[in-house]
């Protein structure tokens, strides 16, 4: 039905369609990487393609989370005016693939050996119905602690290995008069932290069952209640002013030494770099206590659209360049994430990046690489947002007990399925 509509609209707007029909040597790219570091990272790809004779046509739609970009993409696709590729996240790729508007890169994938080099967990989103429809650009992981080393030395802390260690460390910081935990009280940040808490409390098996398979028994289990209790414990260590704070301001608190630690995805590293801080001497990156060996990931992908045949060559060139080892390394060094293929040398990466690459490889082999529910890689957006609602309401006190929280969680996820 949708397809019919899309074709119909495409015909109706055939004028617009032909007017927009892009130059065959041109790559049209819709994305929301407009901030300094991100734009610089993307520039690497631009130059790689220029070497092969392909021009780059940016279609940037600003707005961090990509909501505006996704709305623009919806309109472009409905008008039959497909971009060569678009930055996309997890389930969006699958939605568009189900609507039949994505291209097919299987040939290129075979030639380049993506099946083997890209982690299987990522292929769940880049392969639809046996066909490669997207090229993953990077792998972010969210179960990280970012610690200010000067503060850590001052309070005499060491790397926390368990949740109880972590609480003890936070207590030390509190006693020293530093804000122990820098948190931005926006629902996605709270839920991102909770992802790590669940993995730490219940272990890898439990995380997969509850947060990826949405198994009801796990969701209302005592382990889940314990996870909420642990979250409540962590929230007692934030400053009173945390509500509504942006994530990068929370990172800034750690950079400046106003706070000891932030639980955040590895994009936080970009902020440390921007402030000219080096890992090991100025700041420390540890896995969230009790989650070493597992990786909760999210990933940026370039969704490849079903463009007319004469534009396919440019698309293949883009996809090949995106997954080339040189680009994967150069881009991710700048972006703070790790390469989306596990066979990229880690020589150019800093200490945290090296650890990230090693962890990803280990997690991929050991089957402990899980999608982040908060970041939309655990379940479709409706469920992910219902989850964020519940976590956020728990943090801010609309939901008062962990018993109530698990009941609400099961209900909200059921509703959204």
């Amino acid at each position, binding site marked *: 039905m949708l397809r019919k509509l899309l074709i119909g609209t495409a015909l109706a707007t055939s004028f617009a369609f032909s007017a927009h029909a892009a130059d065959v040597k041109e790559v049209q790219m819709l994305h929301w990487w407009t901030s300094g570091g991100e734009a610089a990272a993307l520039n690497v790809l631009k130059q790689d393609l220029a070497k092969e004779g392909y021009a780059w046509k940016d279609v940037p739609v600003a707005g961090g989370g990509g909501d505006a970009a996704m709305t623009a993409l*919806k309109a472009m696709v409905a008008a039959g005016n497909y971009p060569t590729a678009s930055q996309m996240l997890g389930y969006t790729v699958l*939605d568009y693939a189900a609507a039949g508007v994505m291209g097919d890169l299987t040939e290129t994938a075979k030639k380049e050996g993506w099946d083997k080099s890209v982690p299987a967990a990522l292929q769940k989103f880049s392969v639809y119905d046996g066909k490669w429809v997207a090229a993953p650009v990077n792998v972010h992981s969210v179960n990280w602690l970012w610690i200010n080393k000067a503060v850590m030395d001052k309070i005499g802390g060491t790397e926390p290995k368990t949740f109880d260690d972590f609480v003890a460390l936070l207590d030390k910081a509190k006693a020293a008069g530093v804000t122990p935990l820098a948190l931005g009280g926006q629902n996605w940040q709270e839920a991102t932290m909770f992802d790590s808490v669940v993995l730490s409390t219940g272990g890898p098996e439990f995380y997969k069952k509850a947060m990826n398979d949405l198994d009801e028994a796990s969701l209302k289990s005592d382990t889940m209640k314990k996870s909420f209790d642990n979250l409540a414990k962590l929230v007692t260590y934030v400053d*009173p*002013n945390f509500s*509504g704070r942006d994530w990068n301001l929370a990172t800034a608190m750690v950079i400046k030494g106003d706070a000891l630690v932030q639980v955040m995805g590895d994009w936080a590293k970009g902020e440390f770099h921007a402030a000219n801080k080096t890992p090991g001497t100025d700041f420390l990156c540890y896995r969230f206590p009790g989650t070493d060996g597992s990786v909760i990931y999210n990933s940026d992908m370039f969704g490849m659209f079903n463009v007319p045949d004469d534009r396919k060559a440019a698309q293949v060139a883009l996809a090949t360049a995106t997954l080339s080892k040189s680009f994967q390394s150069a881009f991710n060094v700048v972006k703070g994430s790790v390469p989306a293929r596990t066979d990229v040398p880690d020589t150019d990466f800093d200490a945290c990046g090296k650890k990230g690459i090693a962890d990803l490889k280990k997690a991929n082999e050991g089957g402990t690489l899980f999608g982040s529910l908060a970041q939309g890689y655990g379940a479709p957006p409706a469920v992910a*947002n219902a989850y964020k609602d519940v976590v956020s309401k728990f943090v801010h006190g609309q939901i008062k007990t962990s018993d109530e929280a698990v009941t609400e969680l099961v209900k909200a996820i059921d509703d959204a399925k």
Partner: protein
Amino acid sequence: MSTVAETQIKLTPEHDARPGASVRSRLQDLLPKIVLAPSFAATIVFVYGFILWTIYLSFTNSKTFPSYDITGARAYQRLWRWTFESDPPSSWYTSITNMGIFGFLYIAICLALGLFLAILLDQKIRGEGVLRPIYLYPMALSFIVTGVAWKWFLDPGLGLEQTLHQWGWTSFHFDWIKNKDFVIYTVVIAGVWQASGFIMAMFLAGLRGIDGEIMKAAQIDGASTFQLYRRIVIPLLRPVFLSAFIVLAHLAIKSYDLVVALTSGGPGGSAWLPSNFMYEFTFKRNEMAVGSASAVIMLMTLTAIIVPYLYSELREKPR
């Protein structure tokens, strides 16, 4: 009078004498309609057409993309169920109660404050020309600017509270913007700040339109100033109340951007209005049917309030 008659006499023979001119004058008659037709068609399609489309979508199971198979009123059933989930509050319950609180306070305070300021400014004071634009100016700002400015001002770590602490008043405490129970009132504060000056200007125009003779007559009859305003001026301002109410009501309904800029949704989504709910569900959660249903309910609610009010006000016109 005579000129009109002359032109008519002059025109009529020409109509009969030259058929070409008749076409031209017919065209001239049609011209306004032709010029208006595109905008009329655009309104029909893009306003009313899409209202119907939204209603249609709300009865489907549209998710990321519109789907055209009618599947029943499940979206409305869910909204209906959420309407009564108050503890813990569902997002929809929060949105509609916030709309009630915000809508009522915003309209009432803007009207009261606007009228009060207008009456004060109407006392033939010096420097009115300077004061009026000062009050009016906030209306020139977008909701986004208002929201961000007030966000900084109300933030306990940056704005008012921090400043007063630095000045030595350390017991001062004002963290409404961080408090799930009070955050909606900060939206009211910012909204009132922005709109009350404009409402003042409307009332001021109304006050200037009142016949001075009536006032003088009342004063001769011995009416006090209070009585004068209570019994004569305010009743005469009734049409201004109507216009102001309609302007404020639609501003209140579309305050989406104010909520986003000021609170980014508030702690745990506690500052949501139905417009935030609609956008969130349609575009972020890929639940287009639920989003559409909430939009339809917003439209119905607005209609239920505005139509009887318009009816009761406009019915009295002919007298």
